[in-house]
């Protein structure tokens, strides 16, 4: 059986729910309490693939407005990134764009998947699908995931999609 190990990063402004998405994906749980991430936390998830298994190392980077120089070392060896915005905060959409641009500049081969998190908070929602599509169009992307770490909606799908994109380049 073929086992490959891949490193991916979760990027996005603080508080968008990156840690919660990983917690949902890796541990299958959700904690409503917000705890800011300092530095980086690495988690591991083994995914069944058609060729065998992918040992996915998920790097949860502290949220910011973009990749800071001190954090650039975290990106070494990354093959994919899940870029996350908060659907209840419009400014986080702009930060998504910054991250995606920086990642592409650092390494054009990095696979990108976009997610609008907190889709369960319908009353507070400020980012629309057209808003998302407008941001994606800058990078030639047309698909994104509306996720909820709280309910689990589309969380696995987003990570699997990133894995599939990485598989193509395997």
């Amino acid at each position, binding site marked *: 059986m073929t086992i490959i190990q891949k*490193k991916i990063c979760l990027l996005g402004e603080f*508080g968008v729910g990156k840690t919660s998405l990983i917690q949902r994906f890796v541990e299958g749980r959700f904690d409503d309490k917000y705890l800011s991430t300092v530095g*980086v936390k*690495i988690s591991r998830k083994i995914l069944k693939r058609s060729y065998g298994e992918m040992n996915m190392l998920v790097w949860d980077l502290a949220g910011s407005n973009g990749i800071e120089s001190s954090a650039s070392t*975290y990106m*070494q060896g990354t093959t994919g990134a899940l870029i996350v915005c908060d659907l209840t905060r419009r400014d986080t959409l702009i930060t998504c764009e910054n991250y995606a641009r920086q990642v592409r500049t650092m390494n054009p081969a990095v696979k990108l998947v976009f997610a609008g998190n907190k889709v369960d908070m319908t009353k507070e929602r400020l980012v629309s699908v057209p808003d998302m599509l407008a941001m994606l169009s800058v990078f030639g992307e047309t698909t994104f995931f509306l996720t909820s770490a709280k309910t689990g909606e589309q969380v696995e799908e987003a990570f699997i999609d990133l894995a599939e994109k990485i598989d193509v380049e395997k």
Partner: protein
Amino acid sequence: MDDHNSVTLKFEARLAQVASELYDLAYIQVDANLSIVRVSPNLLSVLGNTDQVAAGIRLTDALDEFFGSEQTLRSILHNELPSFKIENINRARPDGSLHYLTFHVLPLDPDQTGSALLVVVEDVTRFGLTEQNLLQKRNELSILQGALSSANAELDRRVEQRTAELVEAKQKIELQLFRLQALRENDHAILGTTDLRVALRAIAEQAKSQLSVDLMSILVFNPPLLTLETVVALGAQSLDLQTARVNLGESMIGRAALDRRTLSFPDLTESIAIPQDDPWAQIENLQACYSVPLIAKGNIVGVLFLGHRSWLRPNQEWLDFLESLAGQAAMAIESIRAFEDLQRSNYELALAYNRTIEGWSRALDLRDRETKSHTSRVTETTMMLVRMAGMTEKEIMHVKHGALLHDIGKVGIPDSILLREDKLTDDQWEIMRRHPVYAYEMLFPIEYLRPALDIPYCHHERWDGSGYPRGLKGEEIPLAARIFAVVDVWDALSSDRPYRQGWPAEKVYEYIRSQSGTHFDPQAVDLFLRVITGETPASDPKINNLP
């Protein structure tokens, strides 16, 4: 192991112990193949006892933090990079507590390229937790600020939206006020005229202006001919339309009237319900038109037709206003027609009254054997004089009635007295003198003739108070009666009677002059003489100032 190596190992062990106790440091030595050669005894403790880090295992396999960093590690090994640091790695201890590590990678011996690497592992939990605490507060504050900013933006948006709604509402209210004002002006126009053309023109002008259309026309239904006839057509370019007559059921106008329902064509180019060759649309090159039946008390009284040379997109208020205008037009047609009917009835009634009065008057003349045309002469002359005295036409009409019926009271006098040729006895005179009272009793109950009582009741009163029936004196006697008294005597003396010839005119005038101030009102005498003879008034030069 020689002594030197033994000392070195002891030194290293002691150094590791001190570093671990004082600085929470541990180390890993890696060879040129990136395999672990040796680790400090406290390494697993610093790492959190979660890893399998031992000599012989590749660094990148032992620690996930180095996965993907092989190239960088080799660069340091070959002195291409001075060092490499991975900061603030979050790790969980077996008890679940969080701790932070920083990995420093540097050449073991900078003078020996490609020999070995030293990885220093530093537990920075103390700083990490402090930083996490600060960052947590900063981020929470920032999220709150963002939420506040969003709330403010939403508030601004709602204020803006509300302001726009208020402006729109204000515009709507103003428009409704304008339209109410227009309807009020139409009411005034309808109430202020009995001319149908004037009233409908006022309505059409308001309608054309308020509804902002190019053509506004009102046609009135002619039931006997079953046609609708244009009364007003504003904005019509064709003269034909300004005088158009439409048969009931023909064109969209005749159809609206026949079907008694509004025909709406806001965009004729999209309409399939109306022939494109409808003459009204075609002649005026209309793109939109509305044909509204005017219905009053359940009857068709006309059609209000409006047209526009581009399409219309009317809202409900526009349609409501159109309906209101149509209602007003229907009401105007109905009320003015009712007024005309009433006026015609009044004329006919007045004519009937006049003919009746004239009939009574002729009957009286016949019974009284009065000189032929006496009554008509005194009536005409009295009317002429009171007109000269400044009476209004309405007052003159009452004078006419009074003059025609001046002796109506004589119907109550027995023929034996009335037609007696000999002198009357005192008793007979007493009866004869009752005829003005009889006239009063006969005419007073008739409301139409009550204002005409002055002459029949008072024409035998005398200026000096010696007359009958009430012995009124001077200006107590109504003016019409004072004037009529002069005229009646003048005609009586001038006319031939069975028992005498009529007096010559000059003798009559002399007699009248002689009675001025006793029998007659001097001013009435002066008026009479001036009008009949053309002579200058003797008694009072201000004859024209008669009340």
